[in-house]
């Protein structure tokens, strides 16, 4: 086991990783920007190094500073959390060059899978069902029109290098295709520095279902069941639950098995998530793989009893997976709500400010992953996720009741600060949601927006 791990992240996930390390008897190094010098993980960790100013590109994305911090503290491994450098193959390379273990898949696997177009090729060849669409990047708007005519409208144009819900455009009408094509390429070039895009059939009433896998570097792997993440707004997930409700068990089993086969076929190592869209006919289509721990990983932890972050660390250490598929026995239902410092009344604009009151829920089977506390200042520099409330119950109805109870206990107040709690409670109260009739259009309907949001 490692003696010391550096955590290259901030917020709730940095604290989550630090807790896993403490339980494993591993010492921790927190790295932080000047804005986060009083943060929860800095207090919790054994050591802390200030690596840069508030803007992420000079601190949490500053590979050189992070590697320096690891070197001077004698850390042997780096846990990148999610976001920031977590799926950056170059950073993984830099870690390796400096004798540090990057806790994640090998750089070459990340490189192949981080590119959506390439990942589709590789995993399609490994037997994963792909949605109808272009097999490779579409070089011109004329070519795009041909592909769109073949697969039928609506279509979605996606940046090959995209991620986190950015760089995607839905086109419902042929007349809009050319401008949308050029716009998406422009955005992709600006945001990702790579303007290759490809086309897929856009599934309007689709559900977003994903499979968690764990693979070691010795050819062993398990899947840990499914999560449904259909409740999302503009490609940002708001509520996740596991297992995916009201879908045929045989289909979910097949999806999980196919995902694991794909993971092993591409030499995946670590914790990973395979994302699928499930259409009205219960057909599933692979969309992408996330090569990192995900925000919603606690859902799977609650139903399987497996600590995914600790497993990541064991795998990075080279320890063969101790779990075998029969050991994974999902039980009950877990639900996660993301509490963001955003105002649902004003188009979910972030609301930075100081928290005068921050009382988190407690009680049975209720887990809250947060870096917040009374007096915490939600800054304007980072994403607005404030807390994840996760509950478990033997069945879905009880779990939703429990979540409703937990959110009613959550008291967050501060001048100018709003949270997504009222909106999350509206979703929990929605009749369709309660029935498990989920689709990526649900939030749009509640917000009376045109329902064309969907994530990847």
């Amino acid at each position, binding site marked *: 086991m490692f003696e010391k791990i550096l955590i290259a992240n901030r917020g709730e996930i940095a604290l989550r990783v630090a807790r896993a390390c403490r339980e494993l008897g591993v010492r921790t190094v927190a790295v932080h*920007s*000047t804005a986060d*010098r009083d943060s929860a993980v800095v207090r919790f960790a054994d050591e*802390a*190094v*200030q*690596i*840069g*100013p508030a803007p992420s590109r000079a*601190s949490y994305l500053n*590979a*050189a*500073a992070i*590697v*320096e*911090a690891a070197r*001077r503290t004698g850390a042997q491994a780096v846990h990148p959390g999610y976001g920031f450098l977590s799926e950056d193959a*170059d950073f993984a*390379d*830099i870690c390796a*060059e400096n004798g540090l273990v990057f806790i994640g898949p090998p750089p070459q696997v990340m490189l192949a899978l981080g590119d959506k177009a390439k990942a589709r090729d590789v995993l399609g060849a490994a037997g994963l069902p792909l949605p109808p669409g272009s097999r490779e990047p579409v070089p011109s708007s004329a070519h795009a029109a041909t592909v769109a005519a073949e697969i039928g409208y609506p279509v979605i144009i996606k940046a090959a290098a995209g991620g986190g819900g950015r760089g995607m455009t839905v086109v419902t009408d042929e007349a809009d295709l050319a401008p949308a094509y050029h716009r998406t390429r422009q955005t992709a070039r600006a945001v990702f520095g790579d303007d290759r895009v490809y086309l897929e059939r856009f599934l309007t009433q689709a559900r977003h279902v994903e499979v968690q896998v764990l693979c070691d570097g010795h050819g062993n792997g398990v899947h840990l069941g499914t999560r449904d993440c259909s409740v999302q707004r503009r490609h940002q997930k708001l509520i996740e639950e596991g297992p995916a409700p009201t879908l045929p068990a045989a289909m979910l089993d097949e999806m999980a098995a196919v995902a694991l086969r794909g993971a092993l076929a591409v030499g995946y190592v670590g914790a990973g998530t395979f994302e699928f869209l499930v259409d009205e006919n219960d057909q599933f289509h692979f969309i992408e793989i996330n090569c990192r721990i995900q925000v919603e990983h606690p859902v799977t932890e609650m139903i399987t009893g497996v600590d995914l972050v600790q497993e990541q660390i064991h795998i990075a250490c080279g320890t063969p997976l101790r779990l075998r598929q029969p050991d994974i026995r999902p039980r009950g239902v877990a639900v996660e709500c993301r509490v963001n410092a955003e105002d649902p009344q004003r188009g979910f604009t972030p609301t930075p400010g100081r928290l005068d009151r921050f009382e988190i829920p407690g009680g049975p089977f209720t887990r809250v992953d947060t870096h917040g506390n009374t007096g915490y200042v939600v800054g304007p520099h980072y994403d607005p996720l404030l807390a994840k409330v996760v509950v478990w119950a033997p069945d879905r109805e009880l779990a939703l009741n429990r979540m409703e109870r937990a959110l009613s206990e959550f008291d967050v107040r501060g001048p100018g600060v709003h949270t997504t709690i009222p909106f999350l409670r509206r979703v929990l109260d929605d009749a369709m949601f309660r029935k498990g009739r989920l689709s990526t259009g649900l939030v749009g309907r509640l917000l009376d927006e045109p329902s064309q949001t969907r994530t990847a």
Partner: protein
Amino acid sequence: MTSAAANGTPAGSDPGGQLRRLAEQTRALVGQLTGPLRRVQVRHGDTVIEIEWHDRTTPVAAPPSSPADTAAAGPTPAAGLTAPPADHATPADQATPAAGHRIGSPIVGTFYRAAEPGGTPFVDVGDSIEPGQVIGIVEAMKLMNEITTDRPGVVVEILAGDGEPVEFDQPLITVAPG
């Protein structure tokens, strides 16, 4: 991402003499350039050359030394950085700080007070300094970054020791208005 310092030869092996050839070519390149150079980065894989000049409005402390002079030196300045404004508390704050302006480290790394081990420190307590003057070096990722002051004054305190690991914004010296 291996950045080879343009005009320095880090200790260690140099398989195939690649680094030596790179250094020679860089020296030739530097000879063709005019103006006060601030930073030169050369990379061999995927071929990158990055050159930064000192802002013409910023006074330069010393004329750029000739490559031959610096080639043999220990820690060789490869980059110059101006310290960020250290106008807020930092973890390294001491109980009774001297009055004045603190120059913080612009990067995480190792602080060196002199250009080579045992050499004369760039600055010492009591020295008068001018904007743009080098007050020390912070080594990060095998690159030597010159730390310069952005205002004139007298050095009243040295806060970081030679060879000490420093954080971003950690105060290195205190400068009192001269």
